[in-house]
């Protein structure tokens, strides 16, 4: 019997929900979820259909991560946070960069270290003057057909792309990321995320702690 054509899509949606696909197929499916409502509905259907299996997951004692989560998502610096609001970004960049230059002439500040132990990749993010600098200290760039994309995530906000990380260190004009903001690197198709939001797995992330 030849299955009706939609069965292929439905089987793919089921495979995605089960989790059996390898990374490239998984990324391709995630991209379809975002762009094709019909496919997204199939995935949602399978999530519901298989949900009774969730009862087989036992509860496990969870550590109290609330303090860490609150520090990450709700930093205690409303004034500073307001300065860094995206809408006032340019003015803030000028004010803060100016202040840094005036009081401490262009020190190099460590912003975050992004580490993926499984892949043996480390990116160092630093800030100097008005520039954000990202260099790979260890490991290789993304394999052919893919690219590492750097994101910054304000507390309570959506990720913003800072650019693609290739073979050369990246430098870009950008204010010092405030404490509590998160930097992350995701695996994306060549050219970067087609949607403006991370589409691939997050390889590493770090929250700015000072």
């Amino acid at each position: 019997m030849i299955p009706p054509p939609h069965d292929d899509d439905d089987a793919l949606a089921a495979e995605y929900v089960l989790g059996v696909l390898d990374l490239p197929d998984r990324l391709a499916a995630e991209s379809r979820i975002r762009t094709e409502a019909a496919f997204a509905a199939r995935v949602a259907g399978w999530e519901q259909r298989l949900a009774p299996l969730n009862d087989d997951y036992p509860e496990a004692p969870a550590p109290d991560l609330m303090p860490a989560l609150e520090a990450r998502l709700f930093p205690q610096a409303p004034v500073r946070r307001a300065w860094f609001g995206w809408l006032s970004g340019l003015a803030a960049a000028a004010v803060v960069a100016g202040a840094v230059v005036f009081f401490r002439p262009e020190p190099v500040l460590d912003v975050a270290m992004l580490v993926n132990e499984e892949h043996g990749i480390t990116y160092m993010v630093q800030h100097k003057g008005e520039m954000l600098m990202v260099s790979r200290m260890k490991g290789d760039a993304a394999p052919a057909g893919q690219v590492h994309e750097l994101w910054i995530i304000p507390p309570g906000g959506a990720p913003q792309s800072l650019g693609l990380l290739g073979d050369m260190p990246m430098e870009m004009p950008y204010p010092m990321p405030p404490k509590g903001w998160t930097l992350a690197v995701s695996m994306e198709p060549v050219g970067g995320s087609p949607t403006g939001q991370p589409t691939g797995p997050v390889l590493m992330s770090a929250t700015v702690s000072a």
Partner: protein
Amino acid sequence: MDDPVADLITRCAAQDRAAFRALYDAASGKLMGVLLRILGTRSEAEDALQEVFTRVWLRAGRFDATRGRGMTWLIALTRNHAIDRLRARPAATEGDDVLAALPDAAPRAEARLAAQGEARRIAECFDTLESDRAQAVRGAYLDGLSYDQLARRFDVPLNTMRTWLRRSLLKLRECMEQ
């Protein structure tokens, strides 16, 4: 339908921090159980749990209570994150030690929840599958096994496993839609 978890997620979407704390209290144990089972180590599960709750807060606005229960949405988000982590691991670390450490994917949930309609339905439908195929579907879902791992576990070629699983899934769907 009464769904306190869904209410909490909806309040998180409205930036209600107290609801976020209550949601952590209500759901972190279950989500930790999911992460431990899929990722295998406590340290990685804890790391992932922080990431999961960060995403819950950031994505709460996408939750639609008319489309399903809150806990189902949380577990889907959690499983997706855990499986992304697994698949991003280099192939060499997906070795036999992972397989050896896997708990047996016995049909506990279906038996235990026989009183509930949905679960009874899926249990009946699993019964229509050959037992090794039902076990492969369960193992994939609960443990996050890849096609490659399933093929090795059941000692069949990868394409055979893929055909098995796809047929089993479509059969499940057909059965559940009856």
